[in-house]
């Protein structure tokens, strides 16, 4: 597949960056960071390579609540899929920006707080994974081929 070029594709790409950014750090990235994300996809050719890959990416963009579950399932089963690659890419771009420094800098917390974060996020990760595996299993037959 080729990199996005038309203005409609660009608009869709910017929207994708905003949606993914909300998932990753809880708020939308600035337009400049979204543009950087689009350029990175083009440079690294982070596009779907098969039907299942394209289905997961399309699903995540269309139904943002599925991003976490599909990300978790891809992390375990399909780390090379475009959805996971694009999320890592946006994560890198957000981290290397002054606007999101605090979202990625190491945080000093008390031992209890660290344990609480690990338990809460660990449980959430397991729930995400379970839902993601169900979503992958419910994908149309051609996407599972």
């Amino acid at each position, binding site marked *: 597949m080729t990199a996005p070029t038309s203005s409609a594709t660009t608009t869709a790409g910017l929207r994708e960056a905003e949606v993914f950014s909300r998932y990753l750090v809880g708020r939308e990235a600035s337009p400049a960071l979204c543009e950087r994300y689009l350029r990175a996809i083009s440079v690294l050719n982070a596009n779907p390579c098969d039907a299942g890959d394209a289905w997961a990416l399309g699903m995540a963009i269309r139904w943002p609540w599925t991003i976490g579950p599909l990300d978790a399932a891809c992390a375990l089963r399909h780390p090379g899929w475009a959805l996971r690659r694009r999320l*890592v890419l946006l994560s890198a*771009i957000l981290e290397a920006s002054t606007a999101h420094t605090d979202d990625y800098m*190491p945080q000093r917390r008390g031992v209890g707080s660290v344990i609480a*974060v*690990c338990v809460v996020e660990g449980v959430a990760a397991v729930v995400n994974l379970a839902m993601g595996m169900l979503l992958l299993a419910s994908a149309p037959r051609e996407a599972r081929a």
Partner: protein
Amino acid sequence: MSDVIVIGSGAAGVCAAWPLVQRGLRVTMIDVGVTDQGAGAMIPAEPWSKLRRSDANQHLYFLGERFEGVPDGKVRVGAQISPPRAYVAADAPRLLPRDAPGFVGLESVAQGGLASAWGAAVSPWASEDLAGLPVTLEEMKPHYDGVAELIGVSGQAGDDLSAHLHDSPSMMPPLEMDTPSRAVFEAYLSRREEMKRAGLALGHARLAACSREHRRRGPQPYHDMDFWSDHGESVYRPRYTLRELLEAASFESVTGRLATRFESHASGVVVQAVDLATGRGERFEAAHLVLAAGALGTTRIVLRSLGKLGVRRPLVSNHSPYFPMLNTRVLGKESSDRRHSLTQITGFYRPGGAGAEAEPVQLQCYSYRSLLLFKLLKEVPLALANSRRIFQALTPAMSVLAVHHADEPSAEKWVSLEADEGVTEAGVPRDRLRIRYEATKEETQRQHRTEREVLGLFRRLGCYTLHSRAVRLGPGASIHYAGPLPMRASPGEMECDGECRLSGHPRVRVADSAVFARLPAKGVTFSMMANAHRVGTLLAGEIGGGA
């Protein structure tokens, strides 16, 4: 005509050239000499934590202008080579082709070679490490000391590492440990006798890094930017010695040339090289030749020059897995922002305990911070939003332990040069290095057993990890290679004598790690530099320069 041609400007090349130039001999250094033309220059001389909050251009050096700092696929060799250091491995695959399935090692045609991205661990070999080589520790010691003075070494003299690493008179005080490593070290000190009996010795890392001003470099700024920039020039890079060499009238550096072969005669040597700007061949003449193009690069030149195509030569490379560890002693504790990014603690573990016969493995303990969080998150099989919050909380208490194993030659570890007709558009011969490297099952089992014992001892120091979570990048990933042209007391064909003269070619000497038949667990770089210094010194004595 020069007295000596040195091929390669890396750690071995500059250390071999140094004593020659000190004696006033005319030295010509030939190399491709790729330099950083990109992101390195735009990094402000500020601490990592400050840059992260203030520099709007940080993506250009943290990620690279073409996002080359965002890894794709599995973790690969050289993952610690950041975009500003990417030039170190650039062009090598094109100019030095090879067919090496499963062998992930790197080569370099950069100015300063692979040592331009060196982790700077200094591990002088002891007598037991030199066993089998026709050179003794007494013969090597002045060259270890000479190189230590030249490059600037810091460490703690007389500590528990001294049983494994001999001290140099010029050694500077050690660099400060960061908070997580200090907690591990204090735990070790509190159980020191127990740990020593178990075979574990830990100490401040011995590093080629200046803790005070030395030869117009340093001191260490503690900016935690050592993977990204060389501000302050605390951490040694071969270009600093090259800069000093260029101040001598008798030294000449010829860059943009790829040396391809040599001819040696009774009266001198001729080196053939390709001018990469024009694709034309050039000839350089000298009385003597020193090969320092890296173990693989030098082997390529020698096999091509001697017409030994398809002939297998031994190859060894340290296996060095990494273990991410949770350092429970610093959970919830304040961590100082003042830190360097290199190895914080060096250690040795002798399987079977302090008095055992087994060869020790070397350990290096790092903290994970300045390489950025997203690279870690990518490897975690969890949803990114969850893993980001988990690792933001855990990274202040994360340490990484590297375990370096020794390596011995075997029938399934070899390199050869395979024929191919003609030259490329750049004028480079089309032949390719072929590499096969397979450790035996027994070797792998022994290594895993030792790793489990090491991890057990670190658990007692409050560091937890799983053996199954090791990061193993595959053969060659340590970027330490040796063995194809070994030094022997009675050298055969394609071997070197005790003074590193290539057998049958008394005017050709090998100054890089190709001359070491085996690799102890200790990193080869510093010993290679010391041996290159010895080669240069012996050659200077043979030629009998003035000054």
